[in-house]
């Protein structure tokens, strides 16, 4: 059979974002792949050099648009490292609630897009329905449906609104029941099991060498989570276990990567419920914006020669910001903002995982790694 290169070009219903995957096929079997990124490269790193520290938060929301809160918090922790700011504990709890709700929303978006890739269209509307519930909660916190600009240097923008705890508990408990519906839909569906089990094996040691982290790595049977390995925020105060999957001997396949994300949704939902109980000063008290209980005073200029960095467990892996401070001559703007996107490193690895499988397995494998091209292209 003749070998040929096919381009799953930028406009494609199943590529979860705007990128090209050039696939070399020999009949139906994939022989080689080459990803081609950069279709939404906006030069955010360059733009951020002319923005204040607080203005950059809005750009970080838009890096990975499916999980905006995790990226803006990741940036804010790096700024707090650069400017050496102490954050009040209530603000940390509020941030944790926002981040974990966002993680649930991001995984729901992934599941809602992964189902149609496999062929199950009804799960898309189900997942987006739950995601609307989470987005309602996040809208109460942040003010907008998608890009919240929620954290501030030294705290958060606003306290939990009146009645938020009650609504959040009701919605998250309802969500915990609904997760069982999704599991039933997928785990009892023969087509889904055939299309995802035994497809797209990835071994943990290889993944680490390639720079893959996050749920993709934990699906391989390794308990590595940035929230526990390099602890930040108040994760050590909550009772939770890092979800880890048991893979097969050949590695983690697409089914493991699907299961790990469902487990992560469950763990995040339980964390939100617990954080609402444990938040200092109670979940029903309200502090006006700027109150020291939720926002600490922070310097706005970084001294010359300092740098700040932070890694963060994003919904897709380990995200990292590195900021180089510029000193007095540059006002309140950083000298260099460097962004580490987990998907930028995972997509070449995911493309290698496809070699040896059929063309029809490409969407299954690609979707199971959860690509989000906004953060990849920056």
């Amino acid at each position, binding site marked *: 059979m003749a070998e040929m290169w096919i381009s799953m*070009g*930028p*406009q*494609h*219903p199943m590529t979860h*974002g*705007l990128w090209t995957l050039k696939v070399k096929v020999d009949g139906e079997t994939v022989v080689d792949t080459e990803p081609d990124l*950069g*279709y*939404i*490269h*906006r*030069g*955010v790193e*360059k*733009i951020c050099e*002319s923005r204040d520290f607080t203005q950059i938060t*809005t*750009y970080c929301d*838009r890096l990975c*648009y*499916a999980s905006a809160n995790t990226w803006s918090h990741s940036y804010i922790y790096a700024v707090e490292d650069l400017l050496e700011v102490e954050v009040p504990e209530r603000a940390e709890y509020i941030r944790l609630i926002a981040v974990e709700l966002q993680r649930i929303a991001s995984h729901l*978006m992934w599941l*809602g897009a992964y189902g149609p890739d496999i062929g199950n269209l009804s799960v*898309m*509307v*189900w997942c*987006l*329905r739950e*995601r*609307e519930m989470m987005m309602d909660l996040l809208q109460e916190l942040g003010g907008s*449906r*998608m*890009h919240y600009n929620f954290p501030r240097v030294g705290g958060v923008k606003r306290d939990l609104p009146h009645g938020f705890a009650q609504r959040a508990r009701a919605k998250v408990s309802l969500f915990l029941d609904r997760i069982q519906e999704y599991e039933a839909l997928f785990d009892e569906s023969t087509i889904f099991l055939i299309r995802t089990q035994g497809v797209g094996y990835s071994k943990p040691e290889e993944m680490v060498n390639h720079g893959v982290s996050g749920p993709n790595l934990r699906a391989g049977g390794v308990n590595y989570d940035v929230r526990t390995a390099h602890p930040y925020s108040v994760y050590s105060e909550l009772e939770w276990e890092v979800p880890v999957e048991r893979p097969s001997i050949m590695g983690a396949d697409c089914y493991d990567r699907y299961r790990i994300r469902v487990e992560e949704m469950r763990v995040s939902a339980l964390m939100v419920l617990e954080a609402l109980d444990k938040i200092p000063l109670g979940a029903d008290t309200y502090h006006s914006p700027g109150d020291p209980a939720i926002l600490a005073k922070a310097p706005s200029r970084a001294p010359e020669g300092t740098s700040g960095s932070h890694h963060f467990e994003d919904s897709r892996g380990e995200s990292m910001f590195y900021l180089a401070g510029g000193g007095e001559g540059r006002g309140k703007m950083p000298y260099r903002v460097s962004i580490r996107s987990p998907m930028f490193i995972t997509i070449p690895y995911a493309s290698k995982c496809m070699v040896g499988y059929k063309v029809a397995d490409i969407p299954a494998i690609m979707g199971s790694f959860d690509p989000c091209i*906004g953060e990849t292209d920056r």
Partner: protein
Amino acid sequence: MDGDGQNYSVFNSRMLVDTVGDITDEALKASRIKDIIGVLVGRVFNWSQRKSLFPLHLGIKCCALEMAAAGASRFDAERFGVFFRSSPRQCDVLLVNGPISKKFADPIVRLWEQMPEPKWCIAMGECAISGGPYFQSYNVLEGVDTIIPVDVYIPGCPPRPEALIDGFDKLRQKIIRIGAAPDDGAPETNNPIIIGDV
């Protein structure tokens, strides 16, 4: 494929079809039946065009998630006839929902040219209108209207799904005014509508 088969030259003859067509056209024009048919059928075409706008499955950036939410269960754009198609050959509307980088300028113009007439373009979100927060970037075009003629602009970052559905409604009103066929340079009907203007 390779010239096999019989040559049905009588029926394939281009000249024959053109001649018959011309004669019929003259006859219809003379008896003014053509005008009557044009008015009636034109209204039917216009109604069917605007009631079933098929946008392209193109998700560039964040506004694509709001586009997906508009198609999902809470906002349900499908009850308005809006049904997303994957192939540009089958679409009416190009819904541009993100910044156009230099790398993507060529593919999006190709997508636009692959769409058959009549076609419209909706610029959704700030990045497509003017470059948005990235207007200073070295890689982002300042708005999709630098390369594609835009009919409706929907501001917002991202616009809510209700705003997107309202944008489709404004496009429908525009189609009522300018008709479904491509216009031949008629003056003053190409002004884009910005939501909130009416």
